[in-house]
């Protein structure tokens, strides 16, 4: 199973993401944002957290226009898997791969703590290692994680069970407590919390392991 971790100027969770993917058995390459192409036969693209391009204009907006993002959009259009975490989620909404937008936290404060999330669906390669209703503890660390979408989009996300995770205690004002959403084909996941920071006992919790192991197990069998 081959994974690519995208590196933008200002990414700061790229190496954590690579460590988490490798620990789960993936063959990982790091890909600079100016590369126009992904490495051959990549199964999964991971867009990591951080502050790409200093969050200029809007979080993720400049990164979404970088050369590699065209390759990521093409990869997703071919049915490839994409995981965006934190700033990576913002990049995926800005690039149009996921619906909605992430605004400034409602309380205007940067939130940095470990929160319980409810797994809303096990029906995706990302969440099949959990049961719907499971509570998992993932760290969050963001200033702009306030998910919003228009009422029609929200109704569609709910009806199609595309909300992957919800906060049990909403830290940022996200509509319907949404912490992570899936694409129409369930192969693109964007989430604000950091599963890659919960894969080692040294992190204080290992609830993220099931996400990476499930994902890599499923892609290895594919």
């Amino acid at each position, binding site marked *: 199973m081959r994974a690519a971790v995208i590196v933008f100027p200002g990414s700061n969770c790229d190496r954590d993401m690579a460590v988490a993917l490798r620990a789960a058995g993936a063959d990982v390459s790091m890909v600079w944002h100016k590369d126009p192409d992904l490495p051959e036969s990549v199964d999964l693209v991971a867009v990591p957290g951080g502050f790409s391009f200093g969050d200029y204009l*809007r979080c993720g907006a400049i990164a979404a226009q970088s050369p590699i993002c065209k390759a990521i959009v093409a990869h997703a259009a071919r049915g490839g898997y994409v995981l965006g975490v934190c700033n990576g989620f913002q990049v995926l909404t800005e690039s149009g791969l996921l619906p909605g*937008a992430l*605004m400034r*936290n*409602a309380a205007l404060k940067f939130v940095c703590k470990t929160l319980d999330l409810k797994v809303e669906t096990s029906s995706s390669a990302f969440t099949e290692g959990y049961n719907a209703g499971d509570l998992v503890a993932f760290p969050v660390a963001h200033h702009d994680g306030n998910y*919003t*979408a228009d009422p029609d989009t929200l109704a569609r996300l709910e009806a199609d069970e595309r909300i992957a995770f919800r906060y049990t205690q909403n830290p940022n*004002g996200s509509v319907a407590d949404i912490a992570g959403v899936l694409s129409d084909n369930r192969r693109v996941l964007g989430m604000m919390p950091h599963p890659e920071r919960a894969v080692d006992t040294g992190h204080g919790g290992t609830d993220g392991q099931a996400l990476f192991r499930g994902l890599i197990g499923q892609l290895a069998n594919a």
Partner: protein
Amino acid sequence: MKARVHVMLKNGVLDPQGEAVRHALGNLGFDGVSGVRQGKVIELDLADGTSEDTITDMCEKLLANTVIESYRVELL
């Protein structure tokens, strides 16, 4: 030529920063401020003859996120 693009959160989208500014104005004793909305202004230096359609395209593709923001183009 120059153009000025005004980007604002759409009506109905809660603007927490504007709300914080409204509270701060109240704390300073400015009564009667019932709402504040905060946006951004982007000034563009453009080649002469750039069409308004091109500027609109810039807004749609990058300068505004039309999921949450509206924009207005002012030619200077």
